[in-house]
């Protein structure tokens, strides 16, 4: 008897709604991808992920929303743009990864790499507060939220002593404009 392939287990949706949603947000058509694997070969973080970048693309091609949005790859992607640069089909995969993350957040999907999402949120909170990032308060908030209080504490002290971390935040004058810009995020 022939072995059941992964495809036998997949239900391929009849509409293209997920693909279209990702296309609208990323400006990229994943259907261009012919699965050569160039993106995966050059990806610096794929080794740490639960699936490879070309597999994420394949899942989007097949409308497998849950699998794609629940993958750790979309959070580990650091936006180095190597895949985008090398893709022979000119799919800007880094933009697809951005769109998948944004969509996962919108859907309230718990990320496989929660600390990475918490970091990004904490970073943006800091920008929203003062217009610029204030490292000490941002790192403090990140560590509280990710319950990872003591890692790098000696490094932080050394950085402080080298004058690399400012104690007080420097708020910009145009905080009202920044607040308005951030309404984009709230509406999302």
């Amino acid at each position: 008897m022939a072995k059941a392939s992964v495809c036998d287990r997949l239900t391929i949706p009849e509409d293209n709604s997920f693909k279209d949603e990702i296309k609208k947000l990323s400006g990229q058509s994943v259907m261009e991808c012919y699965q050569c694997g160039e993106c995966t070969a050059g990806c610096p973080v794929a080794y740490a992920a639960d699936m490879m970048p070309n597999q994420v693309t394949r899942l989007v091609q097949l409308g497998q929303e849950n699998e794609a949005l629940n993958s750790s790859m979309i959070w580990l992607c650091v936006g180095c743009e190597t895949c985008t640069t090398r893709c022979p089909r000119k799919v800007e995969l880094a933009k697809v990864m951005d769109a998948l993350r944004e969509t996962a957040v919108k859907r309230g999907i718990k990320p496989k790499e929660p600390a990475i999402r918490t970091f990004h949120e904490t970073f943006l909170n800091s920008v929203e507060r003062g217009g610029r990032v204030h490292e000490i308060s941002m790192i403090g908030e990140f560590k509280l939220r990710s319950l990872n209080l003591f890692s790098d504490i000696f490094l932080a002290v050394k950085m402080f002593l080298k004058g690399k971390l400012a104690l007080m935040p420097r708020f910009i004058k145009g905080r009202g404009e920044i607040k308005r810009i951030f309404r984009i995020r709230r509406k999302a």
Partner: protein
Amino acid sequence: MKYAYFPGCSLHSTAKEFDMSARAVCRELGIELEEIPDWNCCGATSAHSLNRDLSIALPLRNLAKAEEMGLDVIAPCAACFNRMKSADGIAKDHPEMLTEIAEKSGINYRGTINVISLLEAITLLGEEAIKSHVKRELSELKVACYYGCLLLRPPDITRFDDPENPKSLDNLVTALGAEAVNWPYKTECCGASLSLSKVEVVEKLTHDILSMAKRAGANCVAAACPLCQGNLDLRQAQIETAYGERFGLPVFYFTQLMGLAFGLPESELGLKRHMVSADRVLAASGSR
């Protein structure tokens, strides 16, 4: 030549020495920098990771301010440069998106200026102009020129140098009298923003980069990005412990090397602000 200067958050904190040395070197080269008033964070990786429109609107506010100044923008930080150049690209190539974001954010940018990295601005001056300022050749320095990701990729946005085998920084350090070692990790990723949220990945990637630089015979690294410099310098000691390898590679900003070669006072270059001391390499090289 006069530019609107966008230092960005890192250059006011962890990478202050990049700001100091960039300003000092530009002054020497006759590149006039006027800081964009009341600039805001570009949003960095975090904004484009979570919200596309936010990641465009944040840099647009700075671009609109530079447009009022009537000047092209220089951003030394590779990440800031990349975000601003991306937003500028959207403004110029996707006017419908620009209009939509302008309505949501209240930011009006018309796309009449350009964004350029500091390395490109310096490269544009030509090698002879650089050489004419060199007072002390850095002849004993064997430099691994490390470009990282965002200065060069994606090439349709950055429009600068070769994204796979760039040469601009190698040519620059050669003009300073140093040796640019031939190595294959010029554009490998250091893990950048995962530095706090996925430390083990950053440790592995930076280990691979430092290890390759060492094998190629480098005695120091020249970086063009505060995230790269931070990961390679701040975490070097813990990587040495974790992997049982000794690197001892000082990680300079390329502007610091320029300042040294131009004979600028070290107080203007912030050489003491790094974790891996440059003293041994510089003493051996006679650069000071």
